[in-house]
């Protein structure tokens, strides 16, 4: 399975050590989608992990035990279909092709399952129809 998490931390040097442990101890394939670290070293990262269902749960429990705040991200991008006028400006800036024109109607739709919360589409939209909820 693949799941996405937001992980909050207090020290900046955790990025490598965390991903190392998830690979070596829990047999997971982690991928840091986005990380924001402030001057004092605290921050958050958006992590995608691929692995066996049990391993994913164990790995995330391990992170909680050592003091991180771990939150699973589900459908964290929201698309306001009423506000959206299906211009398509956001389509080509999405690295995962999560935004597409529905074939029949040409209406713009967002596949939240594929979205990695990179945020690239947010400022491509002129009516703020896409919002990222972290």
């Amino acid at each position, binding site marked *: 399975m693949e799941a996405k998490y937001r992980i909050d931390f207090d020290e900046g040097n955790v990025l490598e050590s965390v991903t190392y442990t998830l690979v070596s101890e829990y047999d997971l394939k982690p991928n840091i989608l986005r990380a924001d670290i402030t001057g004092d070293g605290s921050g958050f990262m958006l992590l995608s992990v691929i692995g066996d269902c049990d391993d994913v749960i164990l790995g995330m429990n391990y992170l909680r035990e050592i003091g991180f705040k771990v939150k699973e991200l589900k459908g964290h991008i929201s698309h306001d279909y009423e506000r959206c*006028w299906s211009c398509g400006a956001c389509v*080509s800036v999405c690295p995962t092709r999560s935004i597409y024109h529905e074939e029949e109607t040409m209406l713009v739709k967002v596949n939240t399952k594929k979205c990695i919360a990179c945020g690239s589409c947010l400022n491509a939209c002129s009516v703020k129809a896409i919002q990222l909820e972290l």
Partner: protein
Amino acid sequence: MAKTYEEINNRIKTGEAVVMTAEEVVDLVREKGAERAAEEVDVVTTGTFGAMCSSGAFLNLGHADPPIRMTNIRLNGVEAYGGLAAVDTYIGATSLIDPPGTGYGGAHVIEDLIAGKKVHLVATGPGTDCYVRKSIETNISLDDINEAYLYNPRNCYQNYGIATNTSDRTLYTYMGKLLPRMKNATYSSAGTLSPLLNDPHLDTIGMGTRIFLAGGEGYVSWQGTQFKTTVEEVNGVPVGGSRTLAVIGDMKQMDPKFVRGLDITGYGISLAIGIGIPIPILNADIMRNCAISDEDIYAEMVDYSLPSGRKCMQRYNYAQLRTGKIEYEGKTIRTSSMSSLAGARKVANTLKDWIEHGEFLLNEPCLSLPKEGKLKGLKDGGQ
């Protein structure tokens, strides 16, 4: 066999008129040829829904008691023109809120008014013997004020360029977000459905043509600004921005579905509106023009990282652009539209519906738009 406006209007009134969208007629003309298709079809409806920056609204706010001659006017904090008579004003779509930076502007005021929302008015004036009042603060809505009409000096661009970015940094332009090293390209035309590409030499569209304007009835009022006819043509249509229209229409009839105030990152405020133009099929030549489709319409890709002298890098047709990717020197570039095809279809279909139900008659233009037009530049430090 030629038809007249009168004949077509009579058929519309009796509900007999055959109306098709500019997408629907493509196959018909391919199958039956333009002559036969022209006999069968009375009207072709076109549509576009895109950013039209050169737009704005004339408003007459009504007189207060005692009255004021407004010279400084703000609507929801956005500057409106104070150089007309007492309570007349014009609010331009790109006008900024004061202080700027909230992503709200003239286009949003126009959208709010059309959506029936209250708008906050603050105005001041010099105070004169005939207009003694010096300031007023109140709320207005579209129903409260006298006239409110859009008058857009340049809409409906006949084709447009494709924008890409060869530099190493992301550019934020009126053609959208352009990723570095040509990772994407953007274009802006309704292609097959685009009004002026279906009547490329304006044989039927002229001053007085009745149109669909943002959900209400409007008219072509003049040639649009920057009207030019000198652009090279391929398959009978120009490969770049060419003719334009000035349009007018009553805001009180408009539908917020076809209006969007835009805040384009890095550029500013603009207004997206839906415009549809009916084309009367008076003869086979007009029908032939309406049969143009995405494959036949080309646009030129230019590099927006160059400050000026942007040359055509390559031409692509709209069928290629709409696949979502194009090739340039062996590299794949992803594409995005800046104007809404879904919206353009809705416009063309709504107009078709109106005509089929006898609710919208065609108006014969009282004046043709210019056959020729050249663009002049602006001299720096001119004497």
